[in-house]
């Protein structure tokens, strides 16, 4: 029973293996997303910071957009839309810890995409958003 459980956990981990396993730089993460996109989407045309910015700022059918918590300026400190708890800036230029922990990245894309879009985000959407966040100057 335990073995079956452990094997299933390993299989789940393998499904997320497109991102680097340990500490990474935001550019490593972007490269891993690019590699995943090239493999999974035959018509992949590259990531776009402009598309990522639009995705970040508009609502997608739900009450919240990314900016509801992270504000219109990803280099600024945000606050949780419900609890007002501060959220450190999303842009790597303003917060060196952002997009350096693959497990944390997967965790928060899953949670936040579910809250904002009621679904998982595509590799294209994740890459676009990260391209945008990397382009934001402090």
């Amino acid at each position: 029973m335990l073995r079956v459980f452990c094997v299933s956990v390993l299989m789940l981990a393998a499904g997320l293996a497109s991102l680097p396993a340990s500490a990474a730089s935001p550019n490593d993460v972007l490269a891993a997303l690019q590699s995943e996109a090239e493999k999974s989407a035959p018509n992949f045309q590259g990531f776009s910071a402009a598309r990522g910015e639009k995705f970040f700022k508009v609502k997608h059918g739900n009450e919240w957009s990314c900016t509801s918590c992270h504000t219109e300026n990803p280099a600024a400190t945000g606050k949780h839309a419900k609890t007002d708890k501060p959220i450190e800036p999303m842009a790597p230029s303003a917060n060196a810890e952002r997009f350096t922990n693959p497990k944390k990245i997967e965790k928060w894309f899953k949670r936040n995409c579910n809250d904002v879009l009621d679904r998982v985000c595509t590799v294209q959407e994740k890459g676009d958003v990260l391209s945008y966040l990397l382009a934001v100057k402090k």
Partner: protein
Amino acid sequence: MLKNCKKFPPVIAVAVLSFAVSISAAQADDDGDEDYRGAGRSESRGEGHSGKYGGEDRGKPLQPIQVNAKWKQECSTCHIAYSPGLLPAESWRKVMAGLDKHFGSDASLDVQEILEITAFLVDNASNRWHAPTAPLRITESTWFRSKHDSHEISPSVWKNPKVKSPANCAACHTQAESGSFREREIRMPK
């Protein structure tokens, strides 16, 4: 990953053991709230057959001296880490089983994190909760409503944007983050 799998049996054992402990420990009915001046008046209203507040009483202590690091990390990202003693064990089991829809947000964790945090919460849940109830919201419990009724707190306080929600303990309880809710630590925001 495999190394972590070896940790599962003890974690499950702790969860099962702590369940037993939380039942047997639910005996003491001594409030001893020397820090709470209005206690006598408001508590008599909540008195029921199964103890104070109709059996819906928070635990003592509210938070163990040694806290679980994973709990502290994961449960205080979006809000303060609510002390385990604020709710009974069954409430925490329900909360931890529904993290994908956590009060309107996706707060999902992986299986190992859920097991570890649930064990800590259950192990330190309220030891004075005798009622067969298990609310998801701390603010729905009889002890909470009794301590925060209109005799204790003016309705205008709840409308203050700095308070925003009754779930925002730290708006008035300055030491809420560390599990301390003493009367002398209360500062109503202006």
